[in-house]
């Protein structure tokens, strides 16, 4: 595989673009692999990539019922940040952010990671105190965080609604300057290409329809393209984890599937340089501007459990109200696209990267709102877990058994109700 480079772009420009190869193969599935990962989304592909890169395990298949990256990889608002406070989470997401910082070089694929700063607006002294505590805790782990007072914020983002008459007047912001956005498709394609180059088989249009098992092992996966066996098997199918779990007859999970919507406006001239978050009272809203100029934004879950990849209208209205309340200049901007993804919402808002009741089955699930930013570290630690059959200390508590041990990782302190962990 030829690397992508400025020279290759130039050379192909002279030869009518005939010199490009396909970015990954389309192999027939073998009947047996060392590791089979179900789900060719960002987490599954990243796991396969790091299995090959970090652990030298290349006899790996990644299965997907559709095409790679056809699920939540393309159904997010592409925000990358590490402003988490709970032990375990903060080390995990900071490691992820560090991987993001080098990802384009690592993959030889431009994921367009733009560290444009993540600005969370503050509306009360109590919120500022809470945020200061959170960001100071982050700084102790090596992440970056700043508090902006109102004059600084007004200088950086002059066109927010600073009216003293607004329902929630803005008094400042907490900021993570190294946070930003990336191009979600490119991340999937980059990991796929990198994994494929190292020998990983990416099997698309291969739906898992059943799980064959003994009392304590997975012996094979029934798929639409025949039975595929793996010495070790990993599930990375957030949104549909419970379905696969039932196929393996493993019972219940501390997960519910909920829908999260996202929106893109028509393209505008450069308007917003940062990711801006507005969250107070009943409002929950985040917005950034893509490189094509579209305003990319989202808000709350749809508030009831669903496997349908389509959103409801009250949330469209709610998000539009939030948008115009902090950026009134968007009032006449038209919506271009709108989509909805099915999230694994867990009982404490944190993920699962763990071993399971079956000795050769590993689980990567429960990403809630945080799946996109987590994908590099998720792949990194999941590959490590599969290769070495033991969790890294960072993910020691990201287990299914944490609830019975009373060590919930609840960033929001919202309690055991999945829909509240937005």
């Amino acid at each position, binding site marked *: 595989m030829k690397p992508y480079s400025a020279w290759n772009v130039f050379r192909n420009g002279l030869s009518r673009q005939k010199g490009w190869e396909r970015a990954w193969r389309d192999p027939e599935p073998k009947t047996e692999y060392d590791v089979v990962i179900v789900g060719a989304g960002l987490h599954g592909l990243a796991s396969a990539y790091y299995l090959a890169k970090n652990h030298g395990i290349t006899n790996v298949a990644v299965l997907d019922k559709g095409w790679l990256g056809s699920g939540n990889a393309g159904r997010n608002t592409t925000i990358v940040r590490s402003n988490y406070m709970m032990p375990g989470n903060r080390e995990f997401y900071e490691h992820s952010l560090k991987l993001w910082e080098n990802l384009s070089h690592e993959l030889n694929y431009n994921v367009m990671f733009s560290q444009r700063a993540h600005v969370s607006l503050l509306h009360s002294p109590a919120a500022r105190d809470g945020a200061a505590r959170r960001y100071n805790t982050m700084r102790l782990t090596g992440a970056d965080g700043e508090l902006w007072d109102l004059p600084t914020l007004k200088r950086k983002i002059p066109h927010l609604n600073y009216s003293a008459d607004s329902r929630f007047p803005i008094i400042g912001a907490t900021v993570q300057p190294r946070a930003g956005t990336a191009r979600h498709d490119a991340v999937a394609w980059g990991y796929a290409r990198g994994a494929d180059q190292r020998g990983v088989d990416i099997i698309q249009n291969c739906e898992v329809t059943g799980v064959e098992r003994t009392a304590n092992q997975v012996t094979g996966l029934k798929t639409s393209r025949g039975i595929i066996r793996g010495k070790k098997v990993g599930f990375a199918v957030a949104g549909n984890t419970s379905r696969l779990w039932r196929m393996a007859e493993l019972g219940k999970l501390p997960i519910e599937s909920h829908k999260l919507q996202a929106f893109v406006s028509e393209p505008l001239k450069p308007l917003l340089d940062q990711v801006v978050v507005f969250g107070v009272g009943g409002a929950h809203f985040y917005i950034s501007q893509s490189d094509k100029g579209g305003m990319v934004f989202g808000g709350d879950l749809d508030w009831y459990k669903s496997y349908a990849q389509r959103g409801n209208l009250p949330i469209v209205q709610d998000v539009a109200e939030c948008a115009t309340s902090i950026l009134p200049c968007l009032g006449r901007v038209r919506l271009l696209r709108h989509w909805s993804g099915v999230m694994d919402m867990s009982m404490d808002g944190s993920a699962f990267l763990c071993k399971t009741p079956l000795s050769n089955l590993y689980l990567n699930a429960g990403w809630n709102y945080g799946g996109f930013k987590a994908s590099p570290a998720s792949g990194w630690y999941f590959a490590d877990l599969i290769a070495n059959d033991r969790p890294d200390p960072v993910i020691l508590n990201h287990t299914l058994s944490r*609830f019975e041990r009373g060590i919930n990782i609840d960033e929001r302190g919202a309690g055991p109700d999945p829909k509240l962990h937005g």
Partner: protein
Amino acid sequence: MLRIPCPFCGTRDHSEFSYGGDASVEYPALEAPAEAWLEAVFQRDNIDGVQLETWQHLHGCRMWIVVERDTRSHEIHSVRPAHEGLASALAQSADPVNES
């Protein structure tokens, strides 16, 4: 937009309602062992298909109801009051809302 036929008020938009959760969960007695509470509080079937769930008609009659809904198509198959006494009372009386 879901349209939920409230047994007390008639069919209303779901934005009048607040979602409770899985109605198949049976909460154990207060003195039950921790394992039983773990199961009730944290573990879910997370069904892709028809499931029972609780809703409260928060901006209407404020009653809790049990809705049988398909989580893939959002089709609502049945609705009944969550309180069993009310459910049986409603079933016995001629109910203009449900018959209309």
